[in-house]
């Protein structure tokens, strides 16, 4: 029989395996375009975008970390 504490731990573990994946197309959408195509500046920050995009995302108060 599983104790309530173990159940809670199991539930927590299951929650932690929750993983929001960022599809490639979405990653690409978050890339900044280079100037002059970019209407919001030089696009200098473009290097920080999709190539290093994570498989995990924090969105608002939610943080999902992929353990797989």
């Amino acid at each position, binding site marked *: 029989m599983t104790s309530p504490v173990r159940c809670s731990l199991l539930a927590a573990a299951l929650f932690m395996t*929750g993983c*929001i994946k*960022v599809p490639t197309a979405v990653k690409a959408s*978050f890339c900044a*375009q280079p100037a002059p195509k*970019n209407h919001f*500046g030089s696009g200098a920050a473009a290097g920080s975008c*999709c190539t290093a995009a994570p498989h995990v*995302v924090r*969105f608002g108060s939610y943080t999902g970390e992929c353990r797989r």
Partner: protein
Amino acid sequence: MSAAFRGQRVPRRAVLGALAAGAVGCAGRTLEYTMHSVYDDPNAPKGLPFRTGQILLSEAPGPYGILFTLAPDRFFRFTHSALIVSDEHGEPFVHDMSAEFKPTLATAPAGSLFGGIRRMPLADYVALHLYIEVFEPPPNVDRDKVAAKVRELMGEHVGFDSAWDFYDHRAMFCSEFVVTALAAGGAPIPPLVPLTHNPSLRRVLTWFGVTAVESLPAAALPRERRVAAFSIWPVRAMAESYLEAKRELYRRFTDDQNIGNLLELERYEVALRPPVAEFLERAPRLYEGASTLPPEEEIRGRVRALADAIFGAFPEPAPRAPG
């Protein structure tokens, strides 16, 4: 249209703490505001100006207000709406459809998005936002029926609709909730507005769970005179300048633009790109200390000049030749 997303990164307490408190009093009760009251309806009856059926249109800090601003196929000033329903003592409570993310096994954001109708004192609600305007509903709305509909929806535990589907009322987004409640009191239902054709933003919205092709932006709600406005900025001109800055972002976000030109996935978080954050921070300061509200065209011109300085020039596209 948007959820009132919680957990914003802006240090609101620090910002709000520096602001002078305003007060609105009635019959021995006082509502303390940590934000500035920047508009009082001169035609309002004496006493507490807030009552059931009034509509709140608002703008919260952070990247989502910008994301949702870009979603409709034309510009609207506000991205969130709510409704006042007073309690039996006449105290105004704000009711809105809000959502937050909770960890689940879902692989897309919509699967981890949970929410429903939120109820909070007006003062608490005001403190969550950058800027709020309060409007009277359309004339002849039966406010008791509006209140009854809100209570009915709360009793049914209607959930948040991350798909922004106006036709399915089993779950609702913010303006769907407001317009449904007002319609119970006899208000007209406004026409829906198509969503953006920008491919980049469509992909991101779809990932967030928005599958509708048209929706009801918060600022498309039918309403009458403005009753009040509250702002983190001390004068209304600063708030108007912020809204004009959003309009300028919208003007520049043509169909060939990536949403990534404005927002980034910064580690695990959606954030404004630094030039956009700087623009939104500097635009209100153009009118620091303004004693009057300048004409809209003047504000627009100065905000566009600021955008040109930060982002580079972006002229109005030439009108197409006839024929």
